[in-house]
């Protein structure tokens, strides 16, 4: 691990100032950052510890939206009285991720900034990774790509400096995408709000640019719009073991049902792309219809349009479609009914 200096921030302005320095990184839960520092992937020269900032509150705004402080821990958020009954989709997603120990450490802001779990990224003995070393290529394209992307990836061959088929590993973010959240950041040039769909970047031609954050900007909160899916929500996670594993496919499905018809829907996929995959046409296709398997399959087809698999992950395309149908079906049966049918 590289040497680094450590600074504990006690005020937001101090954190933003220290975090703007070249080589500085914010330390929140550390579950991903410290891990990658041990692998020699992250090499900050200064760590700015933001654990003592007053950013750990969950509050309701007058318009019914909910503001989640960036330092609220995953475990506390999942069990929060303002979240659990109103945004069960988010609680389910949070409790599907990681382990109890990691959820006690990991924060809301940090979860947004999780790096990919692509093994060719975290193992520095592979020289080709455009995320780690821009321009070096992508070892995953011809490698063991079971956990890799099927949507939104850039594939110009393994040697191209633009290629990247990594996925974003978060569960929390998939639910937040389906809920239509927004991200509040504070930086050297002040405060701004970023729509959730704009926060994470697809690889495009610059796979090493992962978010819309500008240098020195610190996530201070995530805001959820007023709850629509409290009664009909389901987070489905398909993975290689029953617990404590990253998603092969995950689906966040929320439905607002009135008089037997879908008034609105929130739908996002995890494990398929470098960001939570949301296609608004798939949501609007469900509107005004009764919740039926045929309608759900149609939404799944829209969501997976243009999907492209690799040697080890082509199975994900059909798995994703069936997972969407299943998640929407379980969501339509009702959140408190229990889904294991």
């Amino acid at each position, binding site marked *: 691990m590289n*040497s680094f200096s*450590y600074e504990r921030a006690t005020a937001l302005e101090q954190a933003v100032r220290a975090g703007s320095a070249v080589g500085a990184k914010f330390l929140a839960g550390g*579950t991903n950052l410290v891990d990658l520092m041990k692998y020699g992937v992250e090499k900050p020269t*200064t760590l700015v510890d933001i654990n003592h900032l007053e950013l750990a509150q969950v509050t309701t705004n007058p318009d019914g939206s909910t503001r989640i402080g960036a330092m609220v821990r995953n475990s506390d958020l999942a069990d929060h009285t303002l979240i*659990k009954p109103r945004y069960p989709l988010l609680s389910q997603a949070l*409790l599907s991720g990681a382990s109890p*120990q990691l959820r006690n450490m990991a924060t809301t802001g940090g979860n947004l900034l999780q790096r990919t779990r692509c093994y060719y990224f975290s193992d520095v003995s592979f020289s080709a990774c455009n995320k780690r070393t821009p321009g070096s290529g992508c070892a995953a394209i011809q490698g063991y790509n079971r956990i890799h992307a099927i949507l939104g990836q850039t594939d110009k061959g393994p040697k191209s400096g633009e290629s990247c088929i990594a996925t974003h590993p978060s569960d929390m973010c998939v639910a937040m995408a389906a809920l239509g959240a927004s991200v509040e950041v504070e930086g050297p040039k002040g405060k701004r709000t970023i729509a959730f769909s704009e926060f994470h970047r697809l690889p495009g031609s610059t796979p090493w640019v992962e978010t819309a954050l500008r240098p020195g900007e610190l996530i201070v909160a995530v805001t959820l719009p007023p709850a629509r899916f409290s009664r009909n929500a389901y987070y489905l996670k398909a993975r290689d073991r029953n617990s404590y594993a990253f998603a092969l496919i995950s689906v966040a499905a929320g439905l607002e049902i009135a008089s037997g018809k879908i008034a609105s829907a929130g739908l996002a996929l995890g494990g398929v792309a470098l960001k939570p995959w949301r296609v608004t046409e798939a949501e609007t296709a469900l509107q005004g219809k009764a919740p039926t398997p045929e309608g759900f399959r149609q939404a799944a087809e829209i969501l997976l349009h243009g999907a492209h698999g690799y040697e080890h992950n082509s199975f994900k395309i059909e798995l994703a479609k069936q997972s969407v149908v299943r998640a929407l079906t379980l969501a339509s049966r009702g959140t408190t009914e229990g889904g294991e049918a």
Partner: protein
Amino acid sequence: MTDPSLNEPEPKEFEQEERELEKHGLHFELNRRTFMQTAGAFSAAMAFGLPETASAKAPAAAMVRTVTLSVNGSPRPLSLDSRTSLLDALREHLDLTGSKKGCDHGQCGACTVLVNGRRVNSCLTLAFAAEGAEITTIEGLAKTADPKDIGELHPMQAAFLEHDGYQCGYCTPGQICSAVAAVEEYKRGALSIVSLHTGKVDHPEMTDDEIRERMSGNICRCGAYPNIVAAVRTVARGESA
């Protein structure tokens, strides 16, 4: 850096051990004391010669300063490098070797300790960041610190003994710390994904499925899981071990 003298047994124990071994035809060319000293010097050289530390483009000066960790109720001032994990601070600097290093990447749970009463992976916690928090390790769970006094164990330790919740024992301190917190979480009504997906959102029962999910952050390579579940079940349901 480990100070080899900390772990070294008394000279008398050494001699007795070596006599016993020789009686059975076993003879060490390099005795254990020499080995410990050599190993200590060797790993010290390795630590100072780490290529990444030396070759980084703009290395910050190694940051060493005094931090005071509050461990099992006592303040422990330590001079540490900023890179030291809480786990290494406990094991290598405080000689609290109950917490184990398994994967060192937050995947196995062997390093689980309680920080302000919450279970965390001490391998991913920086010691500097833990300053000011109350840290409880496996050594701090029992009422007495005497390892030979098993009459005053924490109920979870007693339950692991009663149900034989281990084989090699390496993961056990992490399992027990994790289980202590899991039962506390359950008692204050914290949910798991099993509770949510089965619709049991109001004080779910601690079923075996719940226990397995809530203990999923602790891996046991020996596969003592059925007995670990039995031990946790006993304590969660308030039955005496």
